[in-house]
């Protein structure tokens, strides 16, 4: 029998499902190899040595045995658990969102170390920062940029004139702004206030340490969320489960007043 080939990589657990008797099938986003799938044998048994290291949204160092379809986890050693995520339903929802988005924008075995770094940074934000909406917007803009869908916010996508400081329109189909004169170029373009345009540009270019000092009012937060969600859903051509879940949580928050904070 040929000797089993093994390789090491650091990876974040994007998804997992039950597999076989007591195994878990993991979708990992690895720093070196992009998205890969691997089986963690016995990982549903609490006494397995892998169990505490292969849970969702954990970052671990893996030793994997190469397989034809699926790799096999031979060892897993926890690097970062992002523990505060697991103690807050809103934070965990944002973490799920970050992973779902990245999962949808990538294909298997496609190396993206920039996205890996972004995801691990974003999980840190969702675990620790107070303004989760702002963190989500920054994450979305960075990911769009890396995936090749950076929204055009500086010139009109129809007349190519520079954008003036006034209310504009955002075309998800064209991937950026249309000036008021050209809004008819896309009948479904969304109105976007001048201040939202300004904030989006700011988020697009400044580092998180600078951006996080912004204190945005709720209506503006929702305007930014709305335009970016529309754009993302247009690109992905399908709803995101975590976004649906977030909306359900918000409806509940209205029912049980004051139960959830930092929900938006």
């Amino acid at each position, binding site marked *: 029998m040929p000797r089993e080939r093994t390789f090491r990589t650091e990876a974040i657990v994007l998804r997992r499902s039950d597999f076989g008797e007591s195994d878990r099938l993991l979708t990992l986003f690895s720093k070196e190899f992009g998205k890969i799938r691997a089986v963690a044998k016995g*990982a549903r048994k*609490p*006494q397995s040595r892998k*169990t*505490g290291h292969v*849970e969702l949204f954990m970052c671990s160092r893996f030793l994997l045995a190469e397989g034809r379809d699926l790799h096999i986890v031979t060892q897993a050693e926890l690097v970062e658990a992002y523990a505060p995520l697991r103690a*807050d339903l809103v934070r965990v929802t944002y973490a799920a969102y970050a992973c779902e988005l990245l999962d949808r924008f990538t294909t298997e075995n496609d190396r993206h170390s920039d996205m890996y770094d972004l995801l691990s940074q974003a999980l840190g934000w969702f675990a620790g920062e107070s303004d989760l909406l702002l963190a989500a917007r920054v994450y979305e803009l960075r990911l769009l940029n890396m995936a090749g869908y950076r929204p055009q916010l500086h010139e009109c996508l129809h007349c190519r004139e520079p954008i003036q400081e006034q209310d504009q329109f955002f075309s998800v189909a064209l991937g950026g702004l249309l000036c008021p004169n050209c809004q008819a170029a896309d009948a479904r373009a969304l109105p976007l206030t001048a201040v939202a345009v300004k904030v989006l540009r700011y988020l697009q270019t400044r580092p998180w340490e600078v951006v996080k000092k912004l204190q945005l009012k709720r209506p503006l937060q929702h305007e930014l969320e709305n335009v970016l969600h529309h754009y993302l859903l247009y690109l992905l051509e399908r709803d995101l489960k*975590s976004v649906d*879940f977030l909306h*359900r949580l918000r409806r509940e928050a209205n029912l049980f007043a004051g139960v959830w904070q930092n929900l938006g």
Partner: protein
Amino acid sequence: MAQNVLPRTVQRLIDTFARLPGIGPKSASRLTFYLLRDKDNLALDLAAALQEMKANTRLCPVCFNITEEEPCLICRDEGRDATLLCVVEEPLDVVAIERSRAYNGRYHVLHGAISPVEGIGPEDLKVAELVRRVQQGNFREIILATNPTLEGESTSLYLQRRLMHEKVKITRLARGLPVGGDLEYTDEITLSRALEGRQEL
């Protein structure tokens, strides 16, 4: 590709087996051919058992565990402490906790867990039924015995908030169950320790 060489009925059984969790196409074929060759009427026994199970079991209208009687044997057992309520994800978790012999109260089976990843919310589970039961019942303690997984923790966090205005003590199984494991696979000793060491939330 050697396609359609199998009779349609055989292929149908293979396909049906393959829809079961944990069974791939290879195991499905193996099981099918085992049943095909078997001389001890195993296939007919299996068919009868399946039919009987589907015809005679339902969910208990009180605790939502699977049962043949309404209410179930646990709900009608006067020897059990009716002021203790243990909330679990699945019927198999009831089996695991019963096996530990460390618990003598009632149960509530949610039939799943909240999952932001899969988009499973409280309205997909027996949560409203739980809240109503707690509001109407005389419980002194609600034990949240969901799995120590991300979904189990999310469910526990959610229930804690939903029940926080009820005048009842809410506890969670002790830590020490490693993150990511399933209750169903926890050995009796660990599980009984986790029950004994449960902490108020």
